[in-house]
């Protein structure tokens, strides 16, 4: 009697467990279906002409693989986001550093992917990918279907053949090289890893000279008088940053404007289309006339709650564009300012860490 009671008890338990086992099987098979087959297909891209507007390069996070390109059309301020992936059905890469437009092609330097993505304009379709670079930063057209590419770690500047998208040769340098400017047959290179401005000869593609300007030169601009302005930013807080004016012919430093403290780290020097007003970031957005005798003490656009990260001037309209990278972890914003009053004219939501811009005719 006792045994039969126990068996009945066990039978009931078994029925209960059988039900639970059934549910478990359903859950498991659902998991299988759920996880293996669900991949979103991007919406098919409707052909679009990327012209008469602003290309925004979003750096993305280091090793996050979320660099992207956005586009703002001048005529109606319409915004299109992540356009490289939409057109080419693959991600742009890891840390998109800069963009250069040469003719009907745009060259996007993707730093941590060690490559330059070349796209045809206005469709933005991939033309080729320049590889064989270590940690590229900026690309400069030097004519003859050749370009120079600076590098963070290679201790060399790459000479790239734009026809076949191959690295042709290297010019050895001493450290991390950043922005470049071409004046006549000379290319001036900011050697960020030192205090030097390097001078390259374009025809021979060789390093011919160098001279000191200030610690960590990061960006340059050429004014209406042909003078070269160099911003030495001191990103690591080791010395007082400075803005210097260089005579490119004599390669002499004509003027030096020292910032007030080593805790400052100015970046992104650029100049208006007239070539008489300099802009740079130093917490806020600052503006300075090329003939001013001192650095501005008041921000043209204050820092406020922004994390100003990128800066560019539209060469056609003179409008000032600045990017706010917020906390680097979310989509940033692009602000448009009036060059005369500094008034905010528009704001657009960009990708992760918007940093560089290119203006398309």
């Amino acid at each position, binding site marked *: 009697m006792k045994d039969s009671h126990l068996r009945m008890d*066990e039978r009931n*338990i*078994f029925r209960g*467990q059988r039900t*639970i*086992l059934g549910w*478990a099987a359903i*859950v*498991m098979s659902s*998991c*299988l279906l*759920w*996880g*293996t087959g*669900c*991949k*979103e297909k991007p919406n098919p891209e409707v052909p679009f002409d990327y012209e008469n507007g602003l290309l925004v390069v979003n750096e993305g*996070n280091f*090793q*996050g*693989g*979320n660099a992207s390109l956005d586009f703002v059309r001048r005529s109606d301020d319409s915004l299109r986001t992540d356009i490289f992936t939409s057109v080419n059905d*693959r*991600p742009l*890469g*890891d840390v998109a550093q800069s963009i250069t437009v040469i003719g009907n092609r745009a060259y996007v330097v993707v730093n*941590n*992917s*060690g490559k330059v993505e070349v796209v045809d304009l206005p469709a933005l379709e*991939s033309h080729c990918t320049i590889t064989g670079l*270590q*940690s590229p930063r900026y690309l400069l057209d030097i004519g003859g279907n050749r370009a120079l590419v600076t590098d*963070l*770690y290679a201790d060399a500047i790459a000479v790239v053949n734009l026809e076949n998208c191959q690295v042709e040769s290297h010019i050895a340098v001493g450290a991390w090289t950043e922005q470049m400017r071409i004046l006549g047959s000379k290319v001036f290179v900011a050697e960020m890893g030192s205090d030097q401005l390097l001078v390259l000869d374009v025809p021979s593609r060789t390093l011919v000279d160098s001279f000191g300007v200030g610690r960590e030169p990061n960006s340059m601009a050429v004014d209406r008088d042909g003078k070269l302005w160099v911003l030495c*930013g*001191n*990103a*690591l*807080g080791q010395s007082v940053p400075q803005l210097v004016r260089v005579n490119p012919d004599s390669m002499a430093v004509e003027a030096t404007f020292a910032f007030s403290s080593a*805790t*400052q*780290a100015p*970046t992104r020097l650029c100049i208006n289309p007239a070539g008489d007003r300099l802009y740079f970031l130093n*917490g806020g957005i600052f503006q300075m006339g090329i003939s001013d005798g001192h650095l501005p003490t008041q921000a043209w656009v204050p820092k406020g709650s922004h*994390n100003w990260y990128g800066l560019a001037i539209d060469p056609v309209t003179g409008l000032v564009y600045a990017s706010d*990278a917020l*906390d*680097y*972890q*979310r*989509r940033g914003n692009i602000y448009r300012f009036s060059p005369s009053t500094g008034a905010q004219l528009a704001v657009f939501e960009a990708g*992760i860490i918007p940093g560089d811009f290119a203006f398309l005719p």
Partner: protein
Amino acid sequence: MRIRLLPIWLCWAGSLLGQVDSSGKGLPDEGLESVTHSLGPVIIVYQLPAAPRTMPGGLAWESDALALDHARTGTLTDLFRAAPSLSLKRYTPGGLASPSLRGTAAGHTQVYWEGLPMNSPMLGQQDFSLGSGSLFNQVGIRYGGNSLLLGAGGIGGAILLSSSQQSNYSKPIAIKYSQQVGSFGSVSSGLNLDFSAKRFSSSTKLYLQTAKNDFPFRNSTAIGAPIERLQDANFTQWGGLQEFNWQPRRWRLYAKTWAFQSARSLPPTMLTLSMGESQSDLVVRNVAGADYLAPKGYSIRSKFGYFREFMHYRNQHAGIESPSLFHRFTAECSYEKPATRFRVFRIADAGLRYVHDQATSTGFVSTAKQDLLSAYGLAKFFVSPRSSAGWSLLMRQELYGSQPSPLLGYLAFHTGRKLQFSTNVSRNYRYPTLNDRYWNPGGNPNLKPEKSLGAEMGLTLQSQYRPWKYNKAYAGVYWTDVQDWIQWLPSTGNIWRPENVQHVVARGAEVQLTLNNRLWRIADSLYYDLRLNYTFNDSRDQNGYQLIYTPRHTANIRITLRLRRWDLQYFQEYNSARYTTADNSLRIWGFTTGDLTLGLRLGNLWRLHFKEKPSNEGLHRKIFQGYHLQFGIRNIWNAEYETVAYRPMPGRSFCLRLDVDLWKQNNER
């Protein structure tokens, strides 16, 4: 003639009363010490109860023997694959793997080895790719406020690792060797040597693991999505754990050393170039302690720990050499009294811990140091002598240098036996790491500790008829509110600086099911074991966004069937999509993978009988040999998945494992 009775093991019940224990091994009972009696010359070995590491009314999970055996040739990640409410962020197999509990960050999961805090004082977390799964036989998780018994900082919870060898006279010598070979150059070897005498035991565990990890994967970021092989992902680690135990009468003295060395390359993502990154680690952890079981039932424990951990990161292309080294000295003592339901109120436990850390790194201007003093007291109340309902209250106070913590606490209520209801509220905090405070540049010495409030409740239905017949179901909800969450933010120039900016609320629901029985309707010798875990987690920051790399849904199911000498195990896990940006604008897709393992036991085929002493006819000694052959298929459905964006994980792979057991057994007649 000597007659020896087998030890009578009774569990440490007082501390387990009302606990929600996923293992099914810890049913409530009275706390009694275990005694081995010997007639003739009488030898009494007092078996001290295991240190209480969970509190009534809190959720706990214990790994079962099957999971421990399965992870024997793997790393710590393999020990916790089937754990509920735990998310493992793995860069690659063998690469950095950080655990996080209940939707909090990896730094909110405290890891303890033999009860000593193990999280790096610099990074504040642990890498679960380091260390072998073969070293531990007690592995568990304490969720939320239940971790406060071990220490503060486990806002998500605490992970416990322990190896505890007990003197086993019936098996004086045991040798176990495991050898596994698998796909992608994976080789894993493990050797255990256990020796037991009357009052003394020694255990030596050694392991070697290596893998090329050059598995193929689809590079979806390249034109045409070609199949490529992962580069620079090889790793090698070897090490071991030595422990000695000596039990003179009411004492237990022990010393353990866990040491390992690892070298691994750090592979690039699908979108980056190899930078020649590598990391090497050399870790030595020591603990020595003495436990005393008083005649009145209370126990006093003391232990000392010394950890030395060296890590060296290299980046060849960037020319970065970043070595770091820290030393940790720990001393702690505790008093424990098993609470019984026959005493309505009792101060159950109290303890004091001192930790001194000092670290050197290229990121520190000088040696960074910190001192921690932590004290706690735990009281338990029962509603009436015969009631199963009771309250527990723990208070903990910490002192970092001269800075006192807020008063931390845990208040829980539990009732019921077969159907248990438990609930608790808790207050916890996490002190900033040395990197947070002293890293140069960017360290912020003015950071405030992160503070949290937590609450949870759950229902447990469990029944145990026989050791092989055990059923349990748990369903519960939790809520955790973390203020002053530390986040590194851009500061001047390229310098990042940690700030107390985030406010995170993590809420969730957990379901756990364990069924363990014999399928007697099909075959008398067919047993099954089924474990199912599901967690829904919603962790949102102050802007309402889900935290990055925090899945909303995680689930796993493990089914094991055993028929005579054969065993078959199937494991399936699921992780839902995870956001990779703070504004939830980008995400990686959810994934599910399945593993299948078939095993065959060839045990006890050869026995060697002989008499130890010709004059002693009653005592025979036997040498047994056992073999366990396993064949496994990992990721059997060949799912393409990533746990970190653009870092591929391996597709289908295979492994073959052989365990060889040799042991000498005393046969008592």
